[in-house]
Structure formats: C-alpha cells, structure tokens
C-alpha cells in the first residue's frame, strides 16, 4: 500500500538539481580568462562546467554557514559565517583575505544601517574620507603577468 507517488518537485537524484541557478556565463568566462594566457581558448562546455561548479561551491559553503547559524540559534547568515565556513571547509587561502575585505567593507559603512547611524552622529565625513582613501588601493595579484589590466575604479 505504500505507493510512492511522486508529488510535485520530486527529486530522484541527489546530485543534479535541474533548475539550478547559475552565474552568467559571460562573467564566469571573463574571470577565467584573467588567469589564462592571451592565446588560450576555453570551450563553451568548460565554461558551463565552471558555472555549475561555482553554484555548487556557493551551496556547499552556504550550507556549512547555515548549519553554524542554526547551532548558534541565529537566523541570519552573515559575512563572518561565510568566512568561517570557508575556513572550516579547507578554503583557508580564501578566508583570510576575505575577512580583511569584509572588515573594510564594514568600516566603510557596510550595510546602510551603520552609515545612517554615523550620519546621525555627525560622522558622515569620516566614511567619505575612508572611501576616498580606499578607492586608491590597487588590486594586485601575486605573480600576475600579462593580464593585469586592473585599475582602481573611480
């Protein structure tokens, strides 16, 4: 009598989720190109594979971050959780620079809440000053050679 009627949204495989959201192939391809020699070519399938890998990466790390939040009875996954999850899953090389990135983002006002508080305290200038100063930071990759068309954004 235990008939397994497939209700809506039956997932018979654990691996592939058909309607996975993917990051745009153009953006992914562009990033790939940044680390390849100028005459390198990338097959369309390789870009598609990369898209899927990135989505999987996001899911993988988010699950870990979300688990941590649940254990600590917090509802919102924040940037620290993402960094901790990366470190926990072996991506230590990413976690350290990302923490610095996150801290700077927060210093600069981060989510609007902080910026509004600062305005209320007449400290809006300090954020703008920091923005000016930060925007002159150059983005350098160690050992990057030909493709370094990195400029500070104005």
């Amino acid at each position, binding site marked *: 009598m235990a008939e397994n009627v497939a209700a809506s949204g039956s997932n018979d495989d654990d691996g592939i989720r058909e309607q996975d959201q993917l990051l745009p192939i153009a953006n992914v391809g562009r*990033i790939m190109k940044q680390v390849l020699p100028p005459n390198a070519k990338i*097959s369309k399938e390789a870009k598609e*594979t990369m898209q899927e890998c990135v989505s999987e*990466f996001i899911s993988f790390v*988010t699950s870990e971050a979300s688990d941590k939040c649940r254990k600590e009875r917090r509802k*919102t996954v924040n940037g620290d959780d993402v960094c901790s999850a990366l470190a926990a899953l072996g991506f230590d090389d990413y976690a350290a620079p990302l923490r610095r990135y996150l801290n700077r983002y927060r210093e600069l006002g981060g989510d609007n809440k902080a910026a509004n508080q600062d305005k209320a305290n007449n400290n809006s200038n300090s954020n703008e000053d920091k923005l000016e100063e930060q925007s002159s930071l150059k983005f350098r*990759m160690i050992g990057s050679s030909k493709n370094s068309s990195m400029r500070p954004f104005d």
Partner: protein
Amino acid sequence: MRQAGSYSGILISGKTGPHLLPLARIKKIMKKSGDGVKMISGESPIVFSKACEMFIKELTQRSWMVTMQGKRRTLNKEDVASAVMATDLFDFLLNLVSEMDTSKSS
C-alpha cells in the same frame, strides 16, 4: 608558475565596490542551498562574490595545467574534471563532474 594564493591587496570602491558577479543571483543560489537557509545579510553575497572569483581562478589555473599537459590550447570540460579529481579541496565537486561526463567517448 602562478599559484592561486592570498591576494596582497583588495580593491574597495564605494561601499560594495564593482563586482564581477551579480549579487542578486548569488543570493538566489544561496537561498536554494537548503531548507535551513532563511535569511541572508546584505554583506554575504558580497563576500561570496569575491570568494567565487577566487574559486573560479583557482579551478581555472589547475584545469589549464591539465590542458597544457595534453599540449592543447583549448581548455575543455574534461580538463576541469581532471583538476577536480586531482584536488582534495574540490572533492565536493566529484559528483557533479562525474555526472556530467556520462558519455565517455575518446
């Protein structure tokens, strides 16, 4: 030989800075990660945007090494699969790459 590793400087311009990847899409993918994911702070997709960039670069570099070993100049999906299999850190991708390559024909 270039190595994926820590970056010496991080570009910040404005609060969020220019991002190579769309934040809204990242957020959607995060939300689909599982039932437990309810709320996501505004900064999380921003952190992920950078993390994904690093991830793509690392996987691409490793894949390219395989391409070069095959004396080719076109990076194909089998190269990506090989790189995944050769890297412990990317074990979480094993199912994905093996499922994609169901018809193995040389």
